[in-house]
């Protein structure tokens, strides 16, 4: 019995190691490319290991464009959008799961329609709407249209559909309002799903390229994802600087993700022990 347990453990670890390798390899490649000299990147015969380390690439990449300003914009945009998405999804998902009201089904499908309409098909109408609101090139123009998240509401709704009704009974008996039942009883329980969603949503917002590109008209309001295009013109790409810039762009998210990953584990285990 010990032997089979050893082999099954070994199998699990090796499969996971393989998967992690597949997932990690491009990141390592990107970091390696960031410090390689350009000719080594383009040369297909060259070895994968940098011939010498050009740490200056990172500094040059940073200086090529107002990355500081763009970082601030990106932080405001991502954090604002993520918080908005969490809030709106929590409320809507709970209501769709726990309440009954006329038009519920239709309204739910309207909500999910957000997932079904790819942004690139509606660029022109969206710009028209934002222009009418005078929200082009503003922070609210970037954040507010992103606050509704069909994915988030969908996740929260599925989560609450599995929750028993009686958890709030005691509170209701005590005369608590529906709002109190939600905020005191049910909302805290959603931590695991909200944590998972928060990470996904933050990543998507941080890397969102098309939407800020369309909404923003001045360099001072641009976000980091547009910054990567600085190094790509129509025919040639400055790969070493591009990868350095890409490294700069994703470092904050990686840090946030690693830190948040621990929080997920806490949140999930706490929720399960319950």
């Amino acid at each position, binding site marked *: 019995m010990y032997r089979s347990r050893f082999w099954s453990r070994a199998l699990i670890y090796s499969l996971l190691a393989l998967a992690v390798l597949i997932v990690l390899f491009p990141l390592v490649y990107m970091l390696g490319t960031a410090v390689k000299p350009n000719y080594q990147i383009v040369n297909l015969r060259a070895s994968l290991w940098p011939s010498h380390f050009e740490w200056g690439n990172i500094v040059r990449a940073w200086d090529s464009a107002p990355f500081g300003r763009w970082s601030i914009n990106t932080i405001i945009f991502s954090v604002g959008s993520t918080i908005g998405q969490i809030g709106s999804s929590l409320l809507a998902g709970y209501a769709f799961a726990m309440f009954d009201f006329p038009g519920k089904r239709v309204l739910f499908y309207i909500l999910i329609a957000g997932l079904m309409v790819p942004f690139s098909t509606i660029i022109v109408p969206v710009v028209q709407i934002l222009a009418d609101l005078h929200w082009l090139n503003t922070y609210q123009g970037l954040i507010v249209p992103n606050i509704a998240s069909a994915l988030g509401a969908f996740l929260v709704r599925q989560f609450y559909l599995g929750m028993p009704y009686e958890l709030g009974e005691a509170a209701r008996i005590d005369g608590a309002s529906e709002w109190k039942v939600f*905020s005191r009883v049910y909302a805290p329980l959603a931590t695991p799903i909200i944590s998972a969603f928060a990470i996904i949503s933050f990543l998507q917002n941080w890397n969102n390229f098309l939407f800020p590109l369309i909404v923003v008209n001045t360099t001072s309001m641009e976000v980091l994802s547009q910054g990567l295009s600085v190094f790509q013109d129509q*025919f040639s790409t400055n790969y070493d600087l591009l990868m350095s810039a890409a490294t700069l762009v994703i470092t904050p998210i990686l840090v946030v993700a690693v830190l948040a990953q621990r929080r997920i584990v806490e949140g999930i285990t706490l929720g399960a022990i319950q």
Partner: protein
Amino acid sequence: MGRKARNKLGATALSAVVAGSLVGVGVSGTASASSTVSFSYWTSGWGTSEITAIDNAFDAANPGYKATGTFIAKSDEFLPKVTAALKTNTQPTVVIDQQPYDLPFFQESGKLIPLTGQVPATNSLYSVIKKSLFYKGQQLGMALSGFGDIALYYNKADFAAAGITAPPTTWAQLAVDAAKLTVPSAKRWGFYVPMGDAEWISYDWEPVLWGDGGTLLNPAGTKATFDSPAGVKALSTWVNLINDKVAPAASFAANGSYDGGNAFESNAVAMVTDGIWVDFATVPKGFSYGVAPFPAGSAGPSTNIGLAVAALFKTTTTEDAAGLAFIKFLSTPGEGAYIASQDYGEPDSPAQVSQPALKAIAAKAPGYNVFTNIVHSGGVRPISPEWGAISADLYTEISDALSGSVTPSQALTTAAQEADALLAKNS
């Protein structure tokens, strides 16, 4: 999440949005009541430091006007953005576009201001460039310097090893040389024929057509003429290189780049026709290459000129005047030379060639002068609104011919038929 934490988050979010909107209001309102007229322009081709330098130079040379440039990301997203802006009346005053055949499309919006007779520098442009700016008698934009053309890169070490003393001057000679330069054991071919479904393939093939005396469209612009015998000959040149196994049959396209520069720099091929950016790439020690004029066809030399144009949009009268002054400013020899030097591109008029900025660049890149000299024999793609679609059909068919699924004659005939249909529909 505890209620306190959520409340705090909510408050933070709210204040962020409020603060943001205040800042946003501040940023978006650029109209000033003072006497300087401020206008904005968008470009996808200039870096942020270049934009600042040009803006400052313009403001200094034109007191009373202030230019604010914005770098907009790559050209494929550029067009949807400009389109959306034109449709919602939020367009900038000037737009610097890397695709001149977008201009008739912008004209459909009714907001493009033709520059016919407005920019004197037009007359000092190379004539083939000047001609390409006109559509239905109107000059739709002004050509900017810093454009690219293509020449022949060759690997000197490979040439020496094969005993070839000078780079080929014609395609016939190139085929002969490529055979000598192909060394299968070293995984090297003589020449790279670009393959893939992308605009570069059309762009790279068109000068082969022109070199053999062919044309793309008839003078009236109503029929495709690239399926002429000259066209078939031109395409066969490429196909034969692959069939004779002196050019790789697999595409080296990577990451949206189809020019084959990576194949040349990896020494997977000894020759490639490419633009000037290869000349500015750092190469490993010991890698020696040369630049020669684009190979000539049976009718003479040629090359392809990839232009960037500045277009003027209707905003307010004062801003439009400022925008026009800006466009004129960009065409002055000094400024034109500066732009060319920043983009590592070519000067678009002879007057710029002698400017100090360009002399400095010529010193840095050995092949620069070749690129400058061959502009005389260059051609430019037609500025018709259907050109994007026609080119797409053309490069798809060329790719089919290169992969051997159709003959060159069939490929060009199909593409020409599709082109004729498009031209007929829209005329």
